[in-house]
């Protein structure tokens, strides 16, 4: 396990001095429901990508290819916004 720093070794006032650090925070463990994509139904409109608050929609060559489950919190916004009902929220344990 990583040894945590003491109070004399950390930046003042709780600042995070490195930019772009949110990616290091693995919020995927917060999830209760996970989004599952029906590739057949998806027309790659990318509305899910626009709405996802955690940039967890993975897009390759302008096509929706899946989810970043390390960071997706399972909020379900993508499923609610999908005009093709191509995303289903599935209870983690039942998957």
């Amino acid at each position, binding site marked *: 396990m990583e040894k*945590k720093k*003491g109070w004399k070794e*950390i930046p003042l*006032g*709780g600042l995070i*001095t490195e930019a772009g650090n949110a990616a290091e925070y693995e919020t995927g463990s917060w999830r209760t429901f996970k989004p599952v994509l029906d590739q057949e139904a998806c027309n790659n409109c990318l509305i899910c990508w626009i709405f996802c608050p955690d940039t967890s929609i993975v897009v390759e060559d302008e096509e929706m290819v899946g989810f970043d489950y390390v960071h997706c919190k399972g909020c379900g916004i993508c499923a609610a916004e999908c005009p093709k009902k191509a995303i289903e929220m599935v209870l983690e344990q039942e998957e």
Partner: protein
Amino acid sequence: MAKTGVKTVKVPLAGNDAAAHAMKQVNPDVVAAYPITPQTELMQAFAQFVADGEVDTELITTESEHSAMSACVGAAAAGARTMTATSANGFALMWEVLYIAASLRLPITMAVVNRALSGPINIHCDHSDSMGARDAGWMQMYAENPQEAYDLWLIAIKAAENHDVLLPAMVMYDGFIISHTMEVVEILPDEAVKEYVGPYKPAYAMLLDEKPFTVGPLDFHDYYFEHKRQEIEGTEHAPAALAEAAAEYAKISGRHYGPLESYRADDADVVMVALGSTAGTARYVVDVLREQGKAAGLMKLRTFRPFPNAEVAGALGNAKCVVVCDRVASFGAFGSPTFMEVRSALYEVPERPLVINYVYGLGGRDTGPDLLEQAFAEGFRVAETGEIKQHVGYLGVR
């Protein structure tokens, strides 16, 4: 002209105008405020300075004190020297943001024009507002008169911005009794104040620093405690920073400000402890009692946070009885805040004095020499008999 050779002017000013004058001379980058009696005239005077172009300050007139303190936090984090002021319920509305300002280590300074908290609703002086926030992480200094309101605010800025400290500071003065009472105030020249506070050097500045960083992120059981420990360390450096700032201020003003001020207390059997304007009344009563041959003294407490523990023990250790006056009730506690702190400071004194507490002046109840004489009389009775009948009494309540 002050004894120091600095060309000062003496002008009659109410406490609010004296404080506004300090603000004008500091010319802060940002002021965010909301009006509330008895602070209103302070911010009104400052707003006039802004309107007249006498300062370059960005004055943000917010929709509440919660927003005012939040705007101060944002401005200070951006790298601006930031000031504000409030009273009573407005102060209470700032509450959660007070802690955030301190934990982000932003040296915002604020005048708190002391007023009783509701309810019942009241606009007059007591210390229930600022005393409630004694654990918020801010430095706290109580002024006795308009002169001190002016002087202490300048000193507070310098100490708060000291990079060993980096904590916000509030300067208190009694609502109406000081805020609306005109006295002669010696004002330093603008240049002297400008030179004294110096250019603002923020520890971090979101708008000025080239490298981006995050302010105020989530901080759980893994690091919250360490950040609080850092904040405590800042507080522990505050007494030295205040002393240094006060010493430098004395060089230009000729006025010396320690964390406390004793008056005829060295050989006194009974010493009264008071904060704010009541210290002036107590000084008069001490003189009256001394004329009657009674060994009475006063210890005016100026700095409440950080509490000057060793100095208090040193100043009061030889008394037989200490009478602590508190303009605030601490419901359910054994005595009021100053009493608790003073009594605790005396615990390790070899022959510790007996300590009694008087709650007085709540909601602006006038506390004249007669009432303080009553408190002293009980102090002398305790000193002579060695017996405390009642630890906490109430002066002037029916």
